[in-house]
């Protein structure tokens, strides 16, 4: 492989990893604090994609300016949706058997898929054009949107890092994800933080959908495929760890892209093999903490 090809393939992998990170960081965050595996996370990602599509293509027209508005709209709409889901649907279940939360998020996939179909129809929804020019690397090209996406993912990673290490809410979320009950008896408003975390996680899914849609194609049910890969990412990285989601996305992104070159038959299988191997040697994933009894 010549060096130019290697560079563009690296960018291909980074682009893919960026989208994966945006999806899986929210999933991991929600799991970390609430210990809920949100099966409907892919469906939230889908809603985000449709919102950005609607704002840019149906309302404002394509421009960098409208893209930014669309991203904000995607985050806002999906985060609000997240708050409703958490406050109205999940909250009554906190004292009930944990399986019910899983069942509910599974039901939500069906509900959201069909609602999206009602609103936007079943047809493919895609950006008619892809924003931006391209960067040339020898005879190959890297669309500037790839670079923008990678920068957005990096920016989100840094923002999340700042949020969790520097703000009081971030620290409280870390406290709750270690022990909900200890946090509560110290006076931390766990209700508010649950809603906040779910909204944040959902907002990230919304942003992921918004960032993905210009190059991908939106359709009802598009979340189903995204979610399984995100599971792999957070399990490899460690559930509940944002750093884990970051590294996990890189591993999945890189291994998928380079496996597709070296031995494509195993392109998808490899991801699950990596996942199984990592779990065998590090039961909690690369950056996950030992699971503790919930106090």
């Amino acid at each position, binding site marked *: 492989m010549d060096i130019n090809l290697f560079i563009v393939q690296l960018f291909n992998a980074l682009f893919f990893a960026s*989208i994966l990170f945006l999806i899986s960081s929210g999933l991991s965050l929600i799991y970390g604090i609430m210990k809920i595996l949100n099966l409907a996370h892919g469906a939230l990602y889908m809603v985000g994609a449709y919102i950005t599509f609607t704002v840019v293509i149906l309302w404002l027209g394509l421009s960098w300016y409208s893209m930014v508005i669309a991203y904000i709209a995607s985050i806002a709409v999906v985060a609000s949706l997240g708050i409703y889901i958490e406050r109205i649907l999940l909250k009554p279940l906190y004292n009930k058997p944990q399986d019910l939360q899983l069942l509910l998020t599974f039901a939500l996939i069906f509900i959201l*898929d069909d609602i999206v179909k009602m609103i936007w129809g079943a*047809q*493919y929804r895609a*950006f008619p054009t*892809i924003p931006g020019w391209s960067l040339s690397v020898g*005879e190959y090209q890297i669309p500037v949107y790839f670079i923008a996406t990678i920068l957005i993912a990096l920016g989100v990673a840094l923002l999340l890092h700042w949020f969790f290490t520097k703000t009081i809410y971030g620290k409280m979320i870390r406290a709750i994800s270690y022990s909900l009950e200890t946090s509560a008896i110290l006076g931390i408003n766990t209700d508010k933080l649950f809603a906040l975390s779910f909204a944040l996680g959902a907002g990230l899914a919304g942003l992921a959908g918004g960032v993905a849609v210009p*190059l991908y*194609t939106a359709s009802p049910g598009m979340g189903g495929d995204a979610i399984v890969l995100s599971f792999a990412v957070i399990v490899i990285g460690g559930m509940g760890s944002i750093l884990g989601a970051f590294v996990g996305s890189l591993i999945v992104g890189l291994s998928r892209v380079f496996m597709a070159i070296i031995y494509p038959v195993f392109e998808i299988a490899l991801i699950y093999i990596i996942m199984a191997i990592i779990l065998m040697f590090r039961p909690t994933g690369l950056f996950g903490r030992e699971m503790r009894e919930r106090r």
Partner: protein
Amino acid sequence: MTQVSDSRREWVKLAGVGVAGLAVGYGVGFLTAPERVREVETPVEGLPGVPDEPLKIGYIYFMTGTLGTYGTNAAAAIELAVEEINRNGGILGRTIELTSKDEADRERVLDNISKMVQDEGAEFVVGLDSSGDALKVIPLVEDELQIPFIVTHAATPKLTECAKRRFIFRISMYEEPIDIMAAQLVKELYEGDVTTVANIGPDYAYGYDSWAIFSGTLQDLMPDLEFLDPIYTPLFTTDYGTYIDQIKASGADLLFSSLWGGDAATFFKQAIAKGLFDSVKVYMNAMLGATDTLEAIGNDNVPDNVDVWGSGRYWFLYPPHDVYPLNRLFVENFRGKTGAYPPYVAATSYTAIYAIKKAIESAYVMKGSWPDVDEIISALEGLTVSGPMGPVYIRPEDHQGLYDVFWGRLRRGSPTYPIPILDELVVYPPGKVVPEPLTTMVSC
């Protein structure tokens, strides 16, 4: 009497006098069609031997999920056909009632088909998008349900060409003739211009078969070409960057693709964004002639530096609207109903309903009362029915519907059309590209 049936009659007249007078020649399929192309008078109420209750037809497509666009389009076209027929007195006075199921409930496809037939009394079933599902229903339909089942979308040659089925028909063109024509077209247009051929297709049987047929045919025609290892991508891949750069690195100048639906659109757009068509000179996609895919691609994404060819089982501008009003009316009515240009599933499912109507009517003429299943089947065998895609001849040997095969060049549709369109259509009659019945290059 509405315009629809007027036009229908008009077309039938044309066909009846043996007009191959369309700009294109119809092949053996059409010419050898028996004299069944005959008008049946609009029936009056109370024909002898016709049951009073409505005739129930079931359909099953992907209605939800990523492939939901196929089912919603097919359903709209089926409803259109049924509305037209019922408005004109139904089939011999029997109105048609529809029932439907969602193919997206994958594990339950067979249960749901059984329900429509055994529980809800459907006498015909049309549908199926997935080739796997189409093969899966064979034992159920042939041995248990034993009613005519018309497949309108699934494309695997194995359905019709591996063995003669008794109850299963396919009205839509299958993949093999389209791929064979692609190879012939390459020889005709690009011999000497291209040297290296690559493939990108979906990572399952349809993708493998398409490449096997295309490359096999092309190798016979142009033995000097270099054929690269085919690239197969998992279904619903969202990110084609790595494949695109691989193709670019391989130096291929002819790229064949069997990607379809949203995948075809996603790949195409990413290929443009990544400048794939700086090196690839000819891109042929066997499923690009789907208006929903083209809508997802958009007018702005039609590149100038590459010859893009697309095909499909129907193209809404062919046969030309001025010489073939049936197609014009279908397109207009479909647009009136859905606001979109009809994709191929719409045309094939629409035609399936008319095939049922016509078979029943022909059999009734022979018998004088409502035909039983065997009589309907023998009427379907060798039937020629006019669909939006032109006359479709149902070959009796394998129950495969045959009609013109086309490839067209992708052009910006504006200002007339908001979507890219296939222009410079090259049309081959089925006789030129359809293999003998019950033969296929795919291993059974």
